[in-house]
């Protein structure tokens, strides 16, 4: 007996374009149904349609939503209000934005309790504490009077879950609940969601783009593409043999250690614009198994096996040839990369004991009362043509380190030697500027919206006096665009006309414009979809081979590290705790933090190893714990860990770790 029945749901804009186009699925009580898809596929709009919280200009046009026998689509708004919160609740992506900053946690949760549970006063207060306790907020009695700003991101998401659970809902809609969180926190929150479901038996609709998260928590999966469910299956079936070419490609596009010498099977192009495809299969333009029929006739829903269905002509019963999933996968030919250029042994960049402290000032006289030690004694070296990955959770100082290398942030002490010359203390516009460039995380914020592509690319050249005149520069711009795989005529367009992946290509072209030798990539793919991420990673890899570039790759995504990097440094609270080659660190992690980090990464192979639960959050860099910074969260920590920072332990020539236990 299914709890939620969605039948042929159509949600669209006022001008007739459908965002969600004929969606049907159902969820049983106690089941987790995951809607998987890239951004712009209509996942969130589906959730909002269910809650009937659609933004202005978007409306539900047809179809029915039934929850526990009540037809939601037919209810008046007043009746719908008693359903929301009580029967179905929602948690959002950004926990920082979904809590009211001027209300205490208790007051916000009590609001739900008063409305849907009829509790008030002491009783409501006590229930708040119970709920907060239930979601694993330590010291709930005190926390209930705290304000949201006093909590970390993971804590806020816990409070959001507590709030959603306050009305004892039958259905929980979770819209990318862990996307804004670090892996270790993500693992905590997923665990919490799983446990809560076990206790309460509620149904859960999980909306995500992350195959790893789906593998961890979902029972059944619907893969969405351009407003439609194109494949639906149980988790095991989907992961064992994905049917739709799109699903197969999604799996193939994931970066992986085994594929590090190959290019990734990126899906060409991007999700089509809303309403641009009215006839035929919506994936046909990006599908390499498509034939004429695919662009002429819209595929219908085909049930293949029990519970697994697909919307693809390949599986049409009327068609003679039925390709099985395995065959489809082998069709993706992974092009082997050319042999790696032997890298030079001399180091291009040597960083020695670099410190970046931010003073905390107080009082009228702005006296320095303390230091935020964002980067605290970091040393590493990087040779030409190699990739060094800098891994760590948010707030560990990765980005600060990258920016201080570029002299965008003044470092406090230490030395940065680039190609034999010391960069610290140099004039702002020093000569080596051009040899070191940065690719930023958010391609939407890193391009000036008021400048055309050609102007963006030319800026660095004119600042560095590269190219004698504008004609020379224009030909260089053309070749740069070729290099990053953009059409030459796109140089007269503005950034807003490009998709996220194309923007990131422009950003890479901008950095390459001054022919740098080192690129500092600050999470260049974390804002992109999986299929586009693969395109960018392929591009970065081929550029490295072509131009013998060195990368300092700042990321929290370990799968990307496995694929792209040669060496890894793991950072925790401003210090490097472990370093070594990719194989050494990722396969035989020595530091407990690295071990925890690795175990928290959701794997797609369903054979999840033991998850080393990491308690609590990253401590503040203004007041780091004494001794080993990780000691308070480390389960192996003993008294010596809490007194002094462990010295370096060489496990091999390349593998070193700062830990007493190693």
């Amino acid at each position, binding site marked *: 007996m299914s709890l939620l029945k969605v039948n042929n749901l159509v949600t669209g804009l006022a001008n007739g374009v459908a965002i969600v186009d004929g969606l049907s699925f159902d969820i049983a009580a106690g089941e987790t149904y995951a809607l998987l898809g890239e951004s712009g596929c209509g996942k969130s709009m589906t959730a909002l349609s269910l809650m009937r919280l659609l933004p202005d*200009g*978007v409306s539900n046009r047809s179809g029915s939503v039934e929850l526990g026998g009540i037809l939601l689509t037919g209810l008046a708004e007043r009746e719908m209000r008693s359903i929301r919160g009580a029967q179905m609740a929602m948690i959002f992506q950004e926990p920082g934005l979904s809590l009211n900053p001027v209300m205490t946690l208790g007051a916000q949760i009590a609001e739900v309790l008063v409305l849907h549970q009829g509790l008030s006063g002491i009783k409501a207060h006590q229930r708040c504490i119970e709920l907060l306790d239930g979601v694993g907020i330590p010291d709930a009695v005190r926390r209930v009077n705290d304000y949201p700003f006093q909590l970390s991101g993971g804590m806020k998401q816990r409070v959001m879950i507590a709030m959603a659970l306050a009305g004892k809902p039958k259905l929980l809609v979770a819209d990318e609940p862990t996307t804004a969180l670090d892996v270790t926190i993500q693992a905590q929150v997923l665990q919490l969601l799983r446990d809560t479901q076990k206790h309460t038996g509620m149904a859960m609709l999980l909306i995500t783009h992350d195959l790893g998260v789906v593998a961890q928590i979902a029972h059944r999966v619907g893969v969405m593409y351009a407003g439609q469910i194109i494949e639906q299956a149980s988790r095991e079936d989907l992961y064992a043999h994905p049917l739709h070419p799109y699903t197969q490609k999604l799996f193939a596009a994931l970066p992986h250690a085994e594929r590090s010498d190959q290019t990734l099977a990126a899906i060409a192009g991007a999700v089509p614009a809303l309403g641009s495809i009215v006839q035929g299969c919506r994936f046909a333009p990006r599908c390499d198994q498509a034939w004429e029929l695919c662009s002429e006739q819209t595929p219908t829903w085909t049930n293949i096996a029990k519970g697994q269905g697909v919307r693809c002509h390949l599986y049409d019963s009327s068609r003679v040839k039925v390709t099985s999933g395995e065959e489809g996968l082998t069709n993706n030919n992974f092009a082997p990369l050319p042999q790696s250029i032997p890298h030079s042994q001399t180091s291009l960049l040597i960083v020695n004991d670099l410190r970046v402290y931010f003073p905390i000032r107080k009082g009228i006289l702005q006296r320095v009362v303390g230091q935020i030690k964002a980067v605290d004694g970091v040393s590493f070296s990087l040779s030409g043509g190699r990739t060094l990955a800098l891994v760590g959770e948010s707030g560990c100082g990765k980005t600060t380190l990258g920016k201080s290398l*570029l002299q*965008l942030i003044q470092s406090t002490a230490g030395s940065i030697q680039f190609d034999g010359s010391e960069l610290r203390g140099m004039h702002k516009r*020093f000569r080596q500027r051009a040899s070191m460039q940065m690719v930023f995380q958010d391609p939407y914020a890193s391009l000036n919206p*008021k*400048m055309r592509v050609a102007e963006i690319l030319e800026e660095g050249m004119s*600042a560095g006096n590269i190219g004698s005149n504008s004609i020379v520069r224009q030909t260089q711009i053309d070749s740069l665009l070729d290099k990053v795989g953009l059409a030459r005529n796109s140089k007269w367009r503005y950034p807003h006309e490009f998709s996220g992946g194309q923007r990131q290509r422009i950003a890479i072209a901008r*950095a390459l414009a001054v022919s740098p030798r080192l690129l500092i990539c600050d999470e260049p793919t974390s804002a992109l979809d999986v299929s586009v991420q693969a395109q960018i990673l392929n591009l970065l890899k081929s550029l490295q081979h072509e131009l013998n570039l060195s990368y300092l790759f700042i990321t929290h995504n370990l799968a990307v590290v496995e694929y792209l990097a040669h060496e890894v440094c793991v950072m925790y609270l401003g210090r490097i705790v472990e370093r070594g080659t990719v194989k050494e660190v990722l396969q035989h992690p020595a530091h407990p933090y690295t071990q925890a980090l690795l175990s928290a990464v959701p794997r797609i192979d369903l054979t999840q190893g033991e998850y080393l639960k990491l308690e609590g959050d990253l401590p503040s860099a203004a007041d780091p714990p004494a001794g080993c910074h990780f000691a308070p969260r480390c389960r192996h920590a003993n008294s010596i860990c809490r007194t002094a920072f462990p010295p370096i332990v060489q496990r091999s020539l390349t593998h070193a770790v700062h830990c007493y236990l190693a």
Partner: protein
Amino acid sequence: MSFIPVILWSDALVFLLLAAGMLVVSYVRQHEYLRLPWRRVAKNSVAMVSLLVLSLFLLVGLLDTLHYRVELKDKNAGKTVYSPEVLSVFDKLVEPLRLHTEKTYSAPLATNLYSKESVTDVSGNIVREYSRLQYAGGQKEGSRDVLRRALFGGIAGFIAAGLLIGIRRAFLHRSPFPVRAGWVQSPVIFAALSIAGLIGMTVNLAGAYHVLGTDKVGQDVLYLSLKSIRTGLIIGTVTTLVTLPLALFLGVAAGYFRGWVDDIIQYIYTVLSSIPSVLLIAAAVLMMQVTIDTHPNWFETAASRADLRLVFLCLILGMTSWTGLCRLLRGETLKLREMEYIQAAQSFGVSSLRILSRHIIPNVMHIILIALVMDFSGLVLAEAVLSYVGVGVDPSMISFGTMINGARLEMAREPMVWWALAAAFGFMLVLVLAANLFADAVRDAFDPRLNRTEGDL
């Protein structure tokens, strides 16, 4: 009759603004991303009606800005002498209004004076009566004549506007901002037709009557109100010439450089905005008045004297009103300087000045535009208040403020003279309301936070 053109200080500034405006328009037309929000404005019917009203006001103001002096018949030792009176093209166009001055007050559309005076009748007796106005009424008069004239004028204006719109439709299929026909255009056309009717009505009536009555010295109130428009517009726009560079450069510099630059700029505007602005303006205007009075030889004509005071008033208003925009721009720049494209530019070693001019300023332009359009109405009102207090424009200069100041005594009179105040009130209300509605539309069109479903989704 020959004449020499006269360019007063304020005229020069208006021409400067006009040239700057045209440059901006041509720049915007070349850049697609700049045209986009203006298309949004063009789709807003309220904005377009307001713009129509504003452009009529602007037309009057511009015509009133083209000044000249007429040559006199008498020659002074062979040299041509020009009249000391500075006239404008607008004065010439509405010459009857300017020259038809009565003895004193008369009510709107009246044929007789508002107060009794002693006249000698045919038999030589002195009687007190409401004597006939010199320039009002004709062979036919009375309310029938007024109605007839209003009707004919209205219909004529309506037809003329209808013909113009028809011709434009027939010959110009493409408008600069492609607008979906029917949806937006109908209210705009309706407004245009009714405004044309109203103008036709007024013109036809003004030929024979004082449509809005006359003031104490018999000047036509309609003429005064129309002349006030230029003063209001100049205060509203020329002031921005002062505020804009100050606010832009100081605000952006404070936000971008931080540190001691920020401290100094913040200190200046905090101090400046904590001085009561009326006090500051009064002090400055009075000081300037003394200077002007002690140097009568600086000015050829009374008009140039009054004009200098107007320009000076703009200057002082500008000096006191840049702080708000400056604070706004500083905040926005603080946000922008952390954007990644700024850091990308910094990592190329691009100079600070170039970052400011290529990255920051283009990205705060929408804020400047919104602030300027919204400040405009505030400044027009400020002029009225200052002139009422007596520290505004020169008493000889016609402005809404001086009209209201004059109305102070008229309201206390028995029977009350209400039309001067009502006319100033009405004109100012229409001007400021149109400016505010237009500003609202501009702000909505440029506001990135507004959720739009048209292009982005």
